[in-house]
């Protein structure tokens, strides 16, 4: 009897909980679909950075979900830094996002500075943008065309141990194809790394 009385409340709570964790309950963004807009503070100076402004500046936009403490993400630090420099010079925009609740904005700023990133690293408090993108790991990459549609999602490459031993430079291949005006050859790969520490 009591259960019947409270059943709607319990069901509503369960539904609300499910909706509050979209990253865990919904499918990943589809290739070709418009990526959600966002605005987040730059970890370095706190100034807001909006996706729509970044999109307007580049031939494509690379969104990197990264971490400061994840060994897998950190294995790619130098690669992300080098690619950021090389492809920014070719007109592609880069944005890093840190969504880990365990990594405060001060540490994110220090890490970005230490790596010499030429692109802003944004702090995603409450992992709201990670949820919007259904991002689950670090490093995890999303590449958007100038209209904001998703053209590549997945990993940077397959070899976290050895940048010189990479055989499948998936992100590089995607960016080179975009710059050449061609379709991205492999639009989806599986990002491999540490789970984003959500609230």
């Amino acid at each position: 009897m009591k259960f019947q009385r409270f059943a709607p409340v319990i069901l509503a709570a369960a539904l609300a909980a499910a909706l509050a964790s979209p990253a865990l309950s919904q499918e990943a963004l589809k290739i070709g679909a418009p990526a959600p807009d966002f605005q987040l503070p730059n970890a370095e100076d706190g100034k807001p950075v909006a996706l729509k402004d970044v999109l307007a500046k580049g031939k494509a936009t690379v969104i990197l979900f990264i971490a400061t403490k994840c060994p897998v993400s950190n294995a790619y630090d130098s690669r992300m830094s080098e690619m950021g420099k090389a492809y920014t010079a070719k007109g592609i925009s880069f944005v890093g996002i840190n969504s880990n609740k365990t990594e405060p904005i001060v540490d994110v700023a220090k890490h970005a500075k230490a790596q010499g990133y030429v692109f802003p690293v944004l702090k995603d408090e409450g992992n709201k943008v990670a949820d919007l993108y259904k991002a689950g790991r670090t490093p995890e990459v999303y590449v958007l065309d100038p209209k904001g549609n998703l053209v590549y999602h997945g990993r940077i490459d397959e070899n976290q141990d050895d940048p010189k031993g990479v055989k499948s430079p998936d992100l590089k291949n995607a960016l080179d194809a975009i710059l050449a005006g061609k379709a991205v050859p492999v639009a989806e790969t599986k990002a491999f790394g540490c789970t984003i520490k959500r609230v």
Partner: protein
Amino acid sequence: MSGRLVSRRQALAACLVPWVVGRRALAEPAKPLVTLAPADYAKKVLAPAKGKPLVVNFWATWCEPCREEMPALQALFDETDPKDAGFVLVSVDSPKVGPKAVPKFLEKTKVTIPCFLVASPDPQTFIDSVDESWDGSVPFTLVYSAKGMRVARLVGSQTKADFAAALAKAKG
């Protein structure tokens, strides 16, 4: 005097330790790591367990939730008769880091579940060889029945009760 004291202590330990940590932990100390190529999963992991349920846990030393759930899995392993079910760990640590980091972690944490180390420079090749719908996140646990049918797919960190429930399902 001292010899008698030592032998008394040894006798006491011999009686109590198996009761405390479980006889299986003593019976099967941590084995040296065996590497696992993508093509080896069925042959090296699944085939030897045919005839009894099998719990396969994918993990990494750098994965915090993996480290957190490990004691729960070890506790269930200790309590389970080896005749009733098999347990296997598969580390997805990289080929560069894994050979040193994994045995060190297992020894430090007294984990005695047999452990394989993935020997594929491309994680995605291995991930797809196990389960194409697996997104590669760890911890990830698959539970198979005695007939080799997959009966549970546990994503993320689990409790001992979660592991036990999945194993009970596998036992049917």
